[in-house]
């Protein structure tokens, strides 16, 4: 990273987004006001070339019945990186995300053409078990969806269905909740319903639930869409921390969020074809810094600078 802004000391950046360590600061949060501020994060820049892709998509098309929602996407997600998918509403980000753990199989009429590989495995081969795939490629949904069960059972559910021994559950639950920075808030009420938590806590519970099965990849579809700035902040911090162990793909409408947390960004848009039908297309996929400071495509530039969509 050659930008002068990277010169900021490493200890500072957290304060840029302005929440005191205990999260109790009621003062208006001096969040990053420009994308440039957001990019000042003191993270090592990812190498321009993906060296170690965990997921790679080649010429992927996704259909709902006859409608081609996503057309010809080729990109990869690197190990221990956060890849952000951005773009205007309806351009197929969620659709593409759901293909990565075959959640699209559950939508009647949904169909995928092309090649999606998890490491070396083509996940749409008939001999691939989607259940097994979803254990490795976990998902956090846009709307927090805790099960109508206790906090403990929410987190223990994934390990339980995979046959983890009862004696190990308590440790897994604690570890996952700690990992999701929720433990201190809920340790005294593990037996209470997960639905009794606040929205931000519920979302962190869903993240804890997801990491309890020790996946390899975590897919997040607008995980902060229903959260306030403080909860958003927590989840962003959490994502950065999780990136040390996991490969993360996140869909977001929040440019600053993409700029703040992701290593690479893919910009999608909905394009009209000759017949006047809209298809989601990948416009540009690059290192996040590049996308936000010197995008190659004019449409990307227009979108990230807020002149479009």
């Amino acid at each position, binding site marked *: 990273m050659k930008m002068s802004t990277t010169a900021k000391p490493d200890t500072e950046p957290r304060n840029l987004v302005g929440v005191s360590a205990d999260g109790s600061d009621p003062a208006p949060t001096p969040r990053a006001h420009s994308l440039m501020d957001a990019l000042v994060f003191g993270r090592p820049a990812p190498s321009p070339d993906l060296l170690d892709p965990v997921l790679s998509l080649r010429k992927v098309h996704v259909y709902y019945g006859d409608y081609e929602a996503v057309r010809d996407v080729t990109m990869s997600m690197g190990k221990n990186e956060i890849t952000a998918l951005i773009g205007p509403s309806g351009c197929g980000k969620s659709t593409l995300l759901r293909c990565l753990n075959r*959640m699209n199989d*559950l939508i009647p009429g949904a169909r995928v053409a092309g090649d999606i590989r998890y490491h070396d495995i083509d996940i749409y081969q008939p001999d691939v078990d989607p259940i097994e795939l979803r254990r490795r490629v976990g998902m956090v949904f846009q709307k927090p969806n805790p099960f109508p069960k206790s906090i403990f059972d929410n987190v223990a559910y994934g390990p339980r269905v995979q046959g983890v021994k009862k004696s190990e559950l308590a440790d897994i639950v604690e570890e996952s909740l700690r990992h999701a920075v929720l433990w201190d808030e809920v340790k005294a009420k593990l037996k209470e319903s997960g639905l009794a938590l606040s929205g931000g806590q519920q979302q962190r519970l869903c993240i804890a639930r997801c990491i309890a099965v020790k996946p390899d990849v975590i897919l997040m579809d607008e995980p902060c869409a229903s959260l306030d700035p403080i909860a958003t902040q927590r989840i962003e911090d959490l994502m950065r921390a999780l990136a040390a162990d996991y490969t993360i793909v996140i869909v977001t409408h929040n440019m600053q969020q993409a700029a703040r947390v992701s290593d690479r960004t893919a910009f999608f848009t909905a394009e009209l074809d000759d017949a006047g039908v809209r298809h989601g297309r990948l416009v540009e996929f690059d290192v996040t810094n590049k996308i936000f400071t010197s995008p190659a495509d004019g449409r990307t530039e227009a979108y990230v600078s807020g002149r479009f969509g």
Partner: protein
Amino acid sequence: MSVTSSTAVVDQLGELPPGHMQAPPRSWWDRSFRPLLLAGLSVGIVVLAILLIFIFVSGWSRLTPTLWQNMPSIQFPELAGAQSAIMGSIWVIATTACISLPVGIMAAIYLEEYGNPNGRFFRLVEINIQNLAAVPSIVYGILGLGVIARALALGQTVITAAITLSLLVLPVVIISTREALRAVPQSIRFGSLALGATKWQTIWKQVLPAALPGTATGSILALSRAMGEAAPLLLLGAVTYITFNPSGVMSAYTVMPIQIYNWTSQSRDEFHTLAAALCVLLLVILLIMNGVAIFLRNRYQRRW
């Protein structure tokens, strides 16, 4: 969208002449509609109250422990009780529950979670279930007599009654379970599947528990209907004079509605008093069952 339309409404209101907020003179129909509805409502309540008071007053003198401690007797109405009928009802309803609930819940799970709603088979089954729910109970009695009691040679036993009543309540159990399953949000299924749970695990550990209160409510109401049912059992030969409790599902039996029917057709007044007393007991049991159903519905309604 909504913003523009609401400003439009405000604009319109602004143009209305002053005083438009005064109520316009209401028509005769407008004013009498509410009392009419109330009258309609009170017919039901008044009839129920009269009925309750009437049987309560007529049965009061026999609402004693002998009612459930003693067996029926033809010679000595003053000693007669209804223990065999009460135990018979419990046996028949418990057996009915054991048959109709698993079958009905499994059918509902198939229809909601596995079946293809556009398939021909699916629609055929669906229409049939709706039609079956409307079949008069006496028809089930004929079916039970012809097929279960005679062709299957199960005779006039608890199991024959239970199978027949199961057929009677099955459509209701299936329909109410389907509704409960449909009320479980998709996001719960997706959340479970995204964690690598199988479809069966998702249904068994997430969907069914979440649907349980609704299922229980519907099932209890269905069973309470079966409990008060006399017509099909009359055909199945439960009229016999039984002075012993059922000893198993292959035992002969009588049930409370049949015992009431028997006593009311006796000529001596003492038996009519007994019938009224047993009516009160039956009503109390049914009210308790419905109360539990309503409690479950309110207690566990929409927790997500």
